[in-house]
């Protein structure tokens, strides 16, 4: 579904990613964890085309997409719920969701009708967004904006979804809600690459995980395998002795 091979990318002259390889199979939930500044966000941005990779390959559904504009990659079926949510603050909640489905909708008239089913599905997942559908997105709370960012990414019925730190800056109860949603999406069979600071929570929901440090992958395996890996345990899960 999503395959990344030997990806190199950076900003200006500073190289951040030095050969990242990973794969997310159809219907799998894969976590990408690692310390601050490891390059997790950069990996996601390089996959979705916001950062142009210097070297390496990205395949979506077997199709190479590296080097394409982000909008083109999005139209090919990749959705990316970015770090910091990045909702369109001046637009309403519903407009944000409609734009999520932009590539599948008519551009002038009749787009509301055509998106009705997808809207219904997202409102079903996030009833709170339905209650606030005419409110401008900038006035939502952080948790609500995160729900909106996830809902917006789902609107396109993506083949692959990237989710960057959905728990960032949220209260514990809200984080709980976010993970409930992630579990529900997993049950529905979504193909998801999840970046999380709270590694423990990410490993609870993931089928497979990669650990990243200083621009490359240093460990990988199923959550159970990673729990047996002492160095990973020590560094990211804060529990040296207890093994699951």
């Amino acid at each position, binding site marked *: 579904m999503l395959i990344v091979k030997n990806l190199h990318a950076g900003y200006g002259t500073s190289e951040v990613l030095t050969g990242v390889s990973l794969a997310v199979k159809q219907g799998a939930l894969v976590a990408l964890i690692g310390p601050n500044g490891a390059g997790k966000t950069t990996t996601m941005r390089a996959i979705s085309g916001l950062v142009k990779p210097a070297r390496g390959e990205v395949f979506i559904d077997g199709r190479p997409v590296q080097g394409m*504009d982000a909008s083109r990659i999005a139209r090919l079926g990749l959705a990316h719920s970015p770090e910091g949510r990045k909702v369109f603050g001046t637009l309403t909640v519903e407009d944000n969701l*409609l734009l*999520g489905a*932009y*590539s599948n909708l008519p551009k002038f008239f009749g787009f509301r009708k055509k998106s009705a089913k997808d809207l219904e599905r997202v409102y079903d997942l996030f009833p709170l967004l339905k209650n606030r559908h005419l409110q401008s997105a900038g006035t939502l709370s952080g948790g609500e904006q995160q729900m909106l960012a996830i809902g917006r990414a789902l609107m*396109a019925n993506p083949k692959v979804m990237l989710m960057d730190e959905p728990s960032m800056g949220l209260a514990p109860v809200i984080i709980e809600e976010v993970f409930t949603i992630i579990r529900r999406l997993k049950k529905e069979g979504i193909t998801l690459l999840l970046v999380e600071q709270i590694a423990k929570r990410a490993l609870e929901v993931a089928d497979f995980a990669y650990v990243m440090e200083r621009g490359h992958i240093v460990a990988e395996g199923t959550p159970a395998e990673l729990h047996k890996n002492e160095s990973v345990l020590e560094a990211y899960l804060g529990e040296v002795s207890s093994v699951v």
Partner: protein
Amino acid sequence: MDQIMVFQMMVSGAFMGLVYALVAYGFQLTYATGKSINFGQGELVMVSAFICLSLTNLGLPYGIMVLLGLLCGALLGLFVERSAVRLALEQKSEGWILLTIILGLLFFSVSENIWGRDDRPFPTPISSDAFQVFGISVTPVEISVAIGVFFIMGLIELFKRQTLLGKAFEAVSTDRDAAELMGISANRTVMLSYAISGVVAAMAGVLISPITTVGPTMASALVLKAFSVAVVAGLDSGFGVVAVGIFLGILESLTSYYIGSGWREVPGLTLLILALALRPTGIFGKAVIRKV
């Protein structure tokens, strides 16, 4: 008697101000999406007006002439985007400032060679016979300026709010990267904004030319005033331009009445200097920070 005269000046000034507002609105459109403006926008107004004049001389009816004129405006806007703005933005440089000025100069000399240096009357089926409203005389041509300005601005705002393409336009304005992630091509949206901005310039030409006549020099005066209006009203704030435009138009008119017609350019320039002085980061400050 004297008071009536002052009101008369204010009303005519206000109509002029609406045209400044319209050109300033064109600046806002491209600034919103591409964080750049066309400093040769005045030349776009002039070239479109000249093209309309030639079309009329070919015997085309007024309505068709206006539509073709607006279409030419859109094409000219696209040309500016492709040949000047895109180049600079791809290199993340502020070179578009110089490039659009140069393009404007180019348009200026091309027009001089094609249409000559003289100011020429611009035919319109709308009458310029004044009628009296509360003792102030207003011409149908002036009324048509107001209607035209509000019509085109209303139409564009409607497009931005009611169509998905318009919402995408807003999305690119607020967050270019996030918009790209939705599958919205930022490049194409910037192109669209330049095309619409070109239509706006052509509309300004069609509306103002019956009052001011058409000539190569109409561009520079117009662009400076529109720029002052856009800077004072804010390059990213919607209808503020209408209020500021009318204000400047009235101020100009009164200045030339009380001090002398040679001074009529002074208020606009003063306004611009004040606006620049009061914004320590510079007008494009925000755009520069965004790119770092």
